[in-house]
């Protein structure tokens, strides 16, 4: 599924790398531990997290993550947004908790 469709269906707010959202999403991963994402997330996955520190961008870039959904209405720092722009990692915001977002993605056919 295309990330653009996901953004629309889940009503996500795009706050960085808006021109990099036309990509295929191959899976999903939920985690707030960076080492866990490094070890276990698959390429082109969408990453659901409540982490919003700039460190998430290097991890996403190394893992070639299709986009990061930051949940629970949390707002990332300026540095995180700047880095996401630089590395072309779409940063997406939602007021919903991780469980809801993962459930919706799963029902849309995205799996781990």
């Amino acid at each position, binding site marked *: 599924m295309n990330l653009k469709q996901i953004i629309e269906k889940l009503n996500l707010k795009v706050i960085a790398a808006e021109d990099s959202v036309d990509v295929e999403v191959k899976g999903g991963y939920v985690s707030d531990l960076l*080492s*866990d994402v*490094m*070890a276990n997330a698959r390429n082109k996955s969408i990453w659901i997290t409540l982490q919003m*520190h*700039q*460190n998430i961008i*290097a991890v996403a870039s190394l893992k070639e993550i299709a986009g990061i959904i930051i949940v629970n209405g949390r707002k990332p720092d300026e540095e995180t947004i700047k880095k996401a722009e630089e590395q072309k990692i779409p940063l997406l915001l939602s007021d919903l908790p991780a469980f809801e977002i993962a459930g919706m993605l799963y029902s849309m056919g995205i799996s781990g």
Partner: protein
Amino acid sequence: MNNNSVLFEEDFKIKGWDFTNAGEASLKIKNYLKEVGIAENILKRVAITSYEAEMNIVLYAKEGTINFKVTPKKVLLEVKDRGPGIEDVELAMKEGYSTATEEIRNMGFGAGMGLPNIKKNADMFVIKSEPGKGTKLNIEVYLK
């Protein structure tokens, strides 16, 4: 060509607690390997080992270096830092063991998976540490 001849080599300086540049060295290493067409599964393993080693310098040491080398047979990383060192290396190697502070954990680190995952993803891994001085890791990932 000799199997030990160095095809590419680069040194990276890593600064402790510098989150603006944290991960940059690993990104450069990964992008280089990707550019020269290294297989995806090898790339993944190198990225995990270099990122975890790089972040341990950022989180725990004052400063350090990563020496990255590619030979026809393998990727080699030598990661050295000047820092507190590790008192009990065997304990530090245990999955889940971490001395990370609350502040570090709040940024998403401190799962205690770094060193174990380096070991898991490397074909060769040696860690040496001298308390009060620093830590040195030698990591190799074979290309075939």
